[in-house]
């Protein structure tokens, strides 16, 4: 066997591969160099010069303009829709399932899928400019149940967050283990809207969940956490005599913030809070809400346990939260409903509320 010839062949192939790689790399730099592009937002109200080449979502985020998104730019959530009047190019196959005909006519696009390659004209709702980024420190974290953690995140000194009770933030994880990139997910704020130097979150472990696994197994007190927010249109309306609030699991978070908001604002509104759990070990904040009930006669707390164990000595309502809701809410007259929980519970409760005369515009819930 002619080893010299083999070595020569291998060397030649390696050289050719190296040269080709270099050429491809150079070509990418030249062909993908879009230079500086101008983003004209809301008819010239805001103009930004940016380096082209990245997705519109990440380009805007680098300019501190945060569009809601739940999948981190993987085109699986469809939340980062933005109106692009010029400069987006044709609709991409990855966008097609998310943009119906009516939205295509309005030039709606998925910001995570389109690249900034030229000057663009965008329309961005004004409220999104209030969304800010915060580099917080996790100052406390405790187990509320076997699968729900309470987190207290302190803002940097001198910074403040202004949010409406019920709104949510995006929580950004760092790469860990098998997860090689940053992940972000939406979590409702559980703390009082009157507290501006920190926020509190309740995060339930989802088996296989990228972010909840990070929070439950990697994150520790003292760590830095990046957040953006506030987001969302789930917040106190208060145009009613009574608020019917329903939550399950970590869905208690925004309800807690809403309850304190009504109390602190001294609103003349009755509140009834139905909190559903499968077992007694799924309940938490019971003492806190019992105390609120004692201190504030306009608040009624109704924790419901579907299947309590005999040894739990549970004396409260037994059965699904839907049963208590049916029995204890007579009608929807002058009432608003606020719900947060898993989709099955939400849908079942919404059906009951509609049967009782609640109109859709008086039923509020988050869709994430």
């Amino acid at each position: 066997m002619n080893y010299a010839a083999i070595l020569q062949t291998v060397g030649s192939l390696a050289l050719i591969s190296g040269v080709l790689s270099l050429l491809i790399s150079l070509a990418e730099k030249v062909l993908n160099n879009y230079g500086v592009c101008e983003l004209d937002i809301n008819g010239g109200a805001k103009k930004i010069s940016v380096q082209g080449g990245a997705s519109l979502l990440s380009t805007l985020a680098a300019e501190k303009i945060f569009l809601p998104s739940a999948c981190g730019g993987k085109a699986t959530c469809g939340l980062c829709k933005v109106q692009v009047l010029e400069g987006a190019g044709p609709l991409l196959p990855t966008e097609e399932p998310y943009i119906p005909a009516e939205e295509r006519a309005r030039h709606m696009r998925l910001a995570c899928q389109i690249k900034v390659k030229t000057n663009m004209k965008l329309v961005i709702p004004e409220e999104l400019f209030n969304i800010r980024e915060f580099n917080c420190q996790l100052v406390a974290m405790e187990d509320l149940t076997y699968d729900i953690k309470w987190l207290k995140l302190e803002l940097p000194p001198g910074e403040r967050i202004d949010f409406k009770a019920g709104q949510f933030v995006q929580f950004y994880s760092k790469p860990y283990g098998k997860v090689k990139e940053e992940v972000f997910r939406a979590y409702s704020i559980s703390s009082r809207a009157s507290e501006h130097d920190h926020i509190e979150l309740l995060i339930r472990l989802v088996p296989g969940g990228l972010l909840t696994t990070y929070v439950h197994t990697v994150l520790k007190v003292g760590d830095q956490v990046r957040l953006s927010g506030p987001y969302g249109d789930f917040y106190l309306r208060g145009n009613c005599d009574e608020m019917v609030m329903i939550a399950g699991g970590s869905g208690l978070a925004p309800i807690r913030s809403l309850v304190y908001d009504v109390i602190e604002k001294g609103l003349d509104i009755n509140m009834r809070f139905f909190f559903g759990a499968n077992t007694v070990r799924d309940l938490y904040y019971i003492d806190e809400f019992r105390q609120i009930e004692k201190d504030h006669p306009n608040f009624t707390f109704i924790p419901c346990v579907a299947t309590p164990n005999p040894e739990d000595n549970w004396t409260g309502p037994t059965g699904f939260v839907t049963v208590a809701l049916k029995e204890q809410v007579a009608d929807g007259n002058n009432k608003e409903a606020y719900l947060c929980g898993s989709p099955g519970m939400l849908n079942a409760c919404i059906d009951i509320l509609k049967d009782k005369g609640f109109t859709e515009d008086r039923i509020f819930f988050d869709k994430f």
Partner: protein
Amino acid sequence: MKPNPADTALRTDMMEGRLVLDGFLGDDERPIPEIVWEDEAQLAALGLTVQDLSKVMRALTRKGMEGYGEPVAEGEYTVVTQEYMGFMGCPFKDNRRAAKRNTTVTNQQGEQFIWSDLSLHLIEAHGFFQGKGSVYRLEPVPLARFLNLSQPVVSQE
């Protein structure tokens, strides 16, 4: 053959740590269409389609949802669905957002199958039972037997 860029992107999104912690592929190195074809062929040998399976699975999940996390009896099965807030996007990017819901079905012999709403959607819409070695893979033939579908299904329409 040069891989299709869309297939490459799909495979990337199915890797561990991208959309779900453990990914959808396990240690299966076959192209995704091949995984789908081979599983469909196994079902075809039993006279079944993915729709035959997914229809029964969907019905069991719906039954389980009536229990809001508590066991529900359905024929010879006990069904429990566990729900979480939020949704999961489909890696095939078809605008299907599956609820974060797991269905655990146990028969009287103690055999058990677990699927998420996303797994069910992947089977129903894409014929994808996931890669060999994936923690979420459902083996089509044992699943068909478990669901008492191993005999050819006569349409009940």
